[in-house]
């Protein structure tokens, strides 16, 4: 082959919707993957200038420092209510919440149930890593039975603390929910599927079909006490059996377009 026939093509570079800053997330934490995918989707949809994000309380409390668009900081659990206020008075904007398992399924349970119930036209990205990260490793509503955390040092005892909450299963019961899916960030193939789901979840909002949520099974190497690569395997071995991946609700208007 001659050199004239070969060109160096840029295949992948960092998305524009991510600010050019170092993040505070632990090395190997899949929050970073989720942020990157959201930024890629926003770039590809060309919606950066009309997007407003709502950050939670948790490890991603500073998410607004990492994305290059308008952002609000909510009180713990209240992001869906804040997003409702923003979206109702700015119906032409794209409004999303980004929430962890404590934010969404513990203190924010009422707020997330009611945005799904109302069919609020917003998108929620739910980072489920079965533990409380920011406060250094306590039990979350999604912590698995037997899982050791700082508030369940002998392992989660269902007799005392009850059972994990499966949010996709719960929210998909709501008529107002248009797109409720669970994906995982534990390997490249699943990360690609997760990105498709995120794209779909934002399209659902753009088409005004109702509430969309993508639950992303994520790792917390630091508080699980294992290295980053092992943490990804832990998702596959332990979390997926408890939180099966799949599409829990898909609005008929997009049903044909939805791939895996």
């Amino acid at each position: 082959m001659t050199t004239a026939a070969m060109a160096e093509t840029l295949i992948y570079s960092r998305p524009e919707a991510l600010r050019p800053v170092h993040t505070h997330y632990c090395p190997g934490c899949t929050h970073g993957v989720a942020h990157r995918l959201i930024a890629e989707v926003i770039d590809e949809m060309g919606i950066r200038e009309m997007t407003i994000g709502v950050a939670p309380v948790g490890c991603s409390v500073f998410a607004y420092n990492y994305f290059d668009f308008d952002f609000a900081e909510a009180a713990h659990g209240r992001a869906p209510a804040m997003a409702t206020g923003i979206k109702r008075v700015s119906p032409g904007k794209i409004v999303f919440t980004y929430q962890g398992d404590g934010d969404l399924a513990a203190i924010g349970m009422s707020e997330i149930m009611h945005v799904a119930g109302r069919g609020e036209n917003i998108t929620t990205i739910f980072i489920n890593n079965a533990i409380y990260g920011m406060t250094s490793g306590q039990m979350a509503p999604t912590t698995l039975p037997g899982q050791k955390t700082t508030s369940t040092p002998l392992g989660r005892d269902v007799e005392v603390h009850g059972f994990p909450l499966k949010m996709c299963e719960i929210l998909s019961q709501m008529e107002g929910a248009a797109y409720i899916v669970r994906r995982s960030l534990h390997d490249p193939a699943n990360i690609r599927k997760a990105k498709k789901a995120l794209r779909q979840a934002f399209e659902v909002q753009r088409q005004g079909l109702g509430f969309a949520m993508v639950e992303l099974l994520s790792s917390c190497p630091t508080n699980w006490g294992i290295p980053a690569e092992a943490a990804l395997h832990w998702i596959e071995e332990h979390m997926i059996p408890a939180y099966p991946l799949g599409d829990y609700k898909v609005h008929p208007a997009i049903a044909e377009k939805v791939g895996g």
Partner: protein
Amino acid sequence: MAKELLEGNVAFAEAAVRAGCEAYFGYPITPQTEALEHMARRMPELGRVFLQAESEVAAVNMVYGAACAGVRVMTSSSSPGVSLMMEGLSYIAGSEVPVVLVDVMRGGPGLGNIAPSQGDYNQMVKGGGHGDYRPIVLAPATVQELIDLTYQAFDLAEKYRCIVVILADGSLGQIMEPAEMPPMRPVRKAEDRPAWALTGAHARKPNIISSIYIDPVEEEKFNLVLMQKMARIEANEVRYKELLLEDAEIAVVAFGTAGRIAQSAIKAAREEGIKVGLLRPVSLYPYPYERVRELSRKVKSILVLEMNGGQMVDDVKMAVEGRVPVRFYGRMGGMVPLPDEVLDEIRALHAQRAPVPTGGAR
């Protein structure tokens, strides 16, 4: 405009509509639910936003979101519901977005009852939520004043980028009186929303609205900004009304409905030759300390009348600085003091009789 017979709750809701309120988020709670019901009908009629939230916690956070998006937004509630809003109010204050809240106070503490009370004075006037901030707090005594203060509240909230609380009580919410509605103001256009608002980062740098300042150095700087704002509010927004104080030997200090009741008692006392007058603070924050201080140099004694166990009385004592005796009379739990009881207190103060420790005297 002609006077109409208006119920307090409906009146303040309609006054907000006329002031250009673009969104209302609330939750039913007696004795102010009529306001939510009025908004439920009026706002969609005018193409504006109404939503009944799932709780007061959700309602105040919806208000927070809409305020971040740069619209004129309000909520209303009553004492137990306002307690649920305290977290949201602290976040709103820490984000400097303008919000209007109407608190129609009822008997407490706890679930209490639905009768009128002034038991939220400390909660609202001293901030309520955690941290160093104070909302502007205005206390109407008539339906007309409730209308006028609500109508001004949105401009005031935007002028200072703060919370404005209209502190009413259950009787004012439920009473029907002749009053005039102000004219309808146009709603602000979307393109005229403030430059700091979250409207989508089109042709500008992104806006971030947050109340976190993780570095204590920055947090203190921000708190100093809030302090300076409060100093400007204190310099400019004191409001009060007076009656018969020019030659008064006794000053009654009372706000809201208590002020109105005191008025009747004062007129009766004057007929008995007692030189008594009324100072009725309308702004509870900023409190008219200077006026109270002035009065304490002229009068022989002060009677504070409240529908609580003694909350505003502390602010009065602070301004009086021990110059003259301050006597407190209050009824609690939704009991409304009658003019006769207040007249007895005025007579007792006049005769320098010691307070009787029953009812609500302190």
